[in-house]
C-alpha cells in the first residue's frame, strides 16, 4: 500500500477586513487588512480572489495585445497595492477568466515565511469603478512545497481526488470585491438590476435569510422600475426603505469597523440577536445604495446646472 501525504495549508486563522471608499471620478477604492490569529499554526502566504466576474473592472492594469490586436492578456501586478515590499500582487484576465491575488515574496520554499500568527497587515487593495458585492477570498498558509507527495499519474482516479483536495486547500473568508458593474453612461435602472441580481445569490451563501432577501428584492425591483420610468423621487423612496431595513439589524453599518472603536471587525461583531443579513453584506449593500443616490443627486445637479446656463445664455441673446 502506498500512502500519500499532503501538508494542508489550512492551519491559519485568517481574518480579512474589507473597506470601500468612493474617491474621485466615481472610482471605488477597495482596501483590505489581513490578520492571522495568534493560535494559527502556519503563516499566511497567499490571498487569492478566484472566480470574480470575468469582466470585473480593476484599474491600472497592463494589457498585452495579440498579433491580431485583440486583448491577449491583462496583467494586474501594477494594479494591486501591497502593504510592503515583502508582498507582491499578481493576477491576470485571460479569455474571460480573472484571478487576482497577493503573495508573500519568497526566494525559497521555507515554510516559516509569511504573515506570522498574531500579526496583522493593512494596505492590500486596488481601485475599480465597479460596485462591491460579497465574494470569497482564499487564504493559503505556507507549507513549503504544497503538492501531494508522492505524485500520481495524471488523470488517474487517485490523481483526480488528490487534485480536488489540493484545489480546496485554503481557508475561505468573505470580502467585498468588485461584483456589480456600473454602466457607462450611468443608468440607475441597470445598476439597480445588477445589485438585485447579486443580492439574489445571498440566501444560498447564507448571507441573508430568504424571507429578508425576498423583501430586499421587491424593493430593489421597485426602485429599478421607478428609475426606468423616470420617477427618481419614487426610486429614492424605495432605496430609503432598503436602507432602513438594513439598519434594523446593523445600526452603525455606515461606519467603518475600525472607526467604531469597539475593536471588532465584521465577523467578530456577533451578538445574541438573530440577524437577517450578514454584516459585511449589509455594509456592501448600504454602500451600493448610497452610491446610486449620490450619483443620481450629482446627475441631477449637473442637469440643473446645464439648464440654468442655457437659460442665461438665451437671456443674453
Amino acid at each position, binding site marked *: 500500500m502506498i500512502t500519500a501525504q499532503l501538508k494542508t495549508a489550512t492551519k491559519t486563522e485568517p481574518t480579512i477586513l474589507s473597506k470601500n471608499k468612493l474617491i474621485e471620478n466615481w472610482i471605488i477604492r477597495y482596501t483590505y487588512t489581513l490578520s492571522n490569529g495568534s493560535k494559527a499554526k502556519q503563516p499566511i502566504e497567499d490571498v487569492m480572489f478566484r472566480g470574480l466576474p470575468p469582466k470585473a473592472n480593476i484599474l491600472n492594469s497592463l494589457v*498585452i495585445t495579440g498579433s491580431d490586436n485583440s486583448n*491577449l*492578456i491583462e496583467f494586474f501586478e501594477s494594479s494591486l497595492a501591497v502593504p510592503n515590499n515583502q508582498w507582491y500582487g499578481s493576477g491576470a484576465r*485571460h479569455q474571460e477568466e480573472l*484571478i487576482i491575488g497577493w503573495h508573500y*515574496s519568497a526566494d*525559497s*520554499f521555507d515554510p516559516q515565511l509569511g504573515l506570522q500568527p498574531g500579526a496583522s497587515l493593512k494596505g492590500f487593495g486596488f481601485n475599480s469603478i465597479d460596485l462591491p458585492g460579497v465574494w470569497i477570498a482564499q487564504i493559503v498558509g505556507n507549507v513549503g512545497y504544497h503538492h501531494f507527495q508522492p505524485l500520481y499519474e495524471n488523470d488517474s482516479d487517485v490523481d*483526480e481526488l488528490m487534485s480536488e483536495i489540493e484545489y480546496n486547500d485554503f481557508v475561505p473568508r468573505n470580502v467585498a470585491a468588485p461584483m456589480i458593474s456600473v454602466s457607462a453612461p450611468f443608468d440607475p435602472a441597470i445598476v439597480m438590476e445588477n445589485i438585485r441580481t447579486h443580492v439574489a445569490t445571498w440566501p444560498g451563501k447564507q448571507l441573508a435569510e430568504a424571507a429578508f432577501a425576498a423583501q430586499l428584492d421587491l424593493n430593489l425591483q421597485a426602485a429599478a422600475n421607478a428609475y426606468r420610468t423616470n420617477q427618481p423621487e419614487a426610486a429614492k423612496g424605495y432605496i430609503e426603505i432598503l436602507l432602513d431595513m438594513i439598519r434594523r439589524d446593523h445600526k452603525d453599518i455606515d461606519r467603518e469597523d475600525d472607526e467604531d472603536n469597539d475593536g471588532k471587525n465584521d465577523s467578530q461583531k456577533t451578538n445574541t440577536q438573530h440577524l437577517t443579513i450578514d454584516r459585511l453584506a449589509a455594509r456592501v449593500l448600504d454602500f451600493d445604495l448610497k452610491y446610486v443616490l449620490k450619483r443620481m443627486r450629482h446627475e441631477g445637479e449637473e442637469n440643473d446646472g446645464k439648464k440654468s446656463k442655457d437659460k442665461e445664455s438665451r437671456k443674453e441673446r
Partner: protein
Amino acid sequence: MGQCVRLTEETKKIIGIQYSKGEAMSTLLFWATGNRQQATGNRQQATGNRQQATGNRQQATGNRQQAWLQKHRLTRWLAKLFVALSLVVSGEALAEVETVPPVQKWAVANGVNSLWNFNFYQLSKSEACLFFYNTWVVNAGYPPHTYIGDNGTYCRWTNFFDHLGIAAQQGIYWSKYDCPDPNVNPDVPYTYRPATNTCERELKYKLTLTPDSATIEPGQSYEFTATVTTLDDKQPGISVPVSVKAEVEANSGGHDHGEKVAKRDKGKVSPANGSNSFQINFTSTQVSGIHTITATCDQCVNKTAVAKVNVMVASLETIPSSAFYAFIGGEEDKPHHDNHYLTPAAAERLLVMAINYRSQQRFKVLDWNTNIRVTPSVLHVNDASLMWGGRFDIKANWTNPHITHMRGIEVDIRANDEVGAIDARNFKAFEKMLDDVVGGKTGRAKYLLECTADKPGSLLKHERKAENLCISRLTLSPDTNRHYHIRLIGAK
C-alpha cells in the same frame, strides 16, 4: 420433313462430324430442295435405298449403341459426379458455380461439308440467313437473285442455284448452343455443359473493407466490416474465408526513430479470421501513427482490401515562435526531433505564461556580480507533444517513462542550472504565477518540478534528495534533468 436428332459424342463419331470444342450440335435439319433436286434425289434415292439398306444396318448398330448409352446414362452421370467430387477431396477449394441458360445461335450453309466449320454465328435465324446471303450468294458470284428473307425455318431467295446448277430456294440451317458473354466479370467466360445444356463458370468474389479509412485517438478502438460478395454484389452461397492483420508505419506519428531500439506494436485486430461478412475490431496502442488493416481473401479477384487508420490526437499544431520563449530539445542525437506541438489553446497559455514571466517585476533576480535586479532570460521550452500526440517514448522503445505529453496540453520548462533555466529563487513565484495565470477556473495549475526518474524500489515518483528541489545531498548540484512539467489546460 427432316428429323431432329440429338447427336451424342458417339453418334458424331459414327457419322464423322467434326465440331470445335465447346460446341454442341443439338439440332440438325436436313432439307432436300427443289424439284430437279428431288428428281435427282429420286435417282439418288434408289441408290440411297441401297445405301439405306446398308445404312439401316449401320443404324441398327448405331441404335444398339445408342440404346446402350441410354441405358447407362445414369452410370455415366455418376461417373462425372465422382470426378467432380474427387477434385474436391483432392484439395481443390469448394467453388460456387454460376449457371445461366445458353443462347441458341444460328448459321446457314449450303450443305457442303466444309461449311460445317463455320465459326461465325449470328444470333437469330434472320441474321444468319442474311449473313450467308451477303457472304456466299452475293460474293460467290452466283447468278442474279433476290434475297427474300426467311420464313422462320429456312432462308429464301430467288434464282439461287447450288453447285450442281440446281436452283435452290433455301439455305441450310443449323444452330448451336453457345454461352452468352457475361455481363459481370467478362474476363471469365462461361463454359457450355452439354450434359445439362447450361452455361457455367466458377463464381468469383470480391472483398471490401469498410470504411476505407478512419481516424481515432491513441488507445481507442474502431469497427470495420469485411464483406465478400459475388461480382454482381450478391451474397456467396458458400463460406469464403477471410484473414485479417494489422500493420504500422514504423516512423509515423512523429516517431522518426523507427524500430531501431524496439519493434513497434501494430495494434490488435479481432477476430483475425472470418468468412463472408463480419465485423473487425481494431484497437490501437497509446502510440500515435499510421496503421493499415489488411483483409485477405484468396478466392476473391482482388485478393486483399485495405483500410488506413490514423491514430492521432487531433488539432495539435507547431508551437508558434515567440520572443518570449526559446525552444530546446529535439537535437539530432535524440530520437524525436520534432517535439514542440500543442493545441492552440495550450500554446496561447504558454505565451501568456512566458509574457508574464518576462513582465512581472517579481521575477527580476539579483545579479550577484552587479547587485542589480535583472530580468530573467526567456523561458526555455523543452518537450511538449509529438506531431500527432500519443505516447512520447523518450527512449525510443515505445514505452514510458515520459508518461504525459500525450494530448498537446503539457510542456516542460527548463529549471536546472543550464542557460535559460528558471532561477531557483523564482521557483515559488513561478508557481504562484502559474496558479494565477494558468490555473483558470479549476484553481491551481497542475505543475510539478520534475527530476530524474525513480530509482527502483523508491516510493517517490521522482528522485528528490533534498526537499523538493532535486538537489543531490552528496554533491549539492541540481539534477540536470530538473524541469517544470506544466499542464497548460486544466485537468480533465
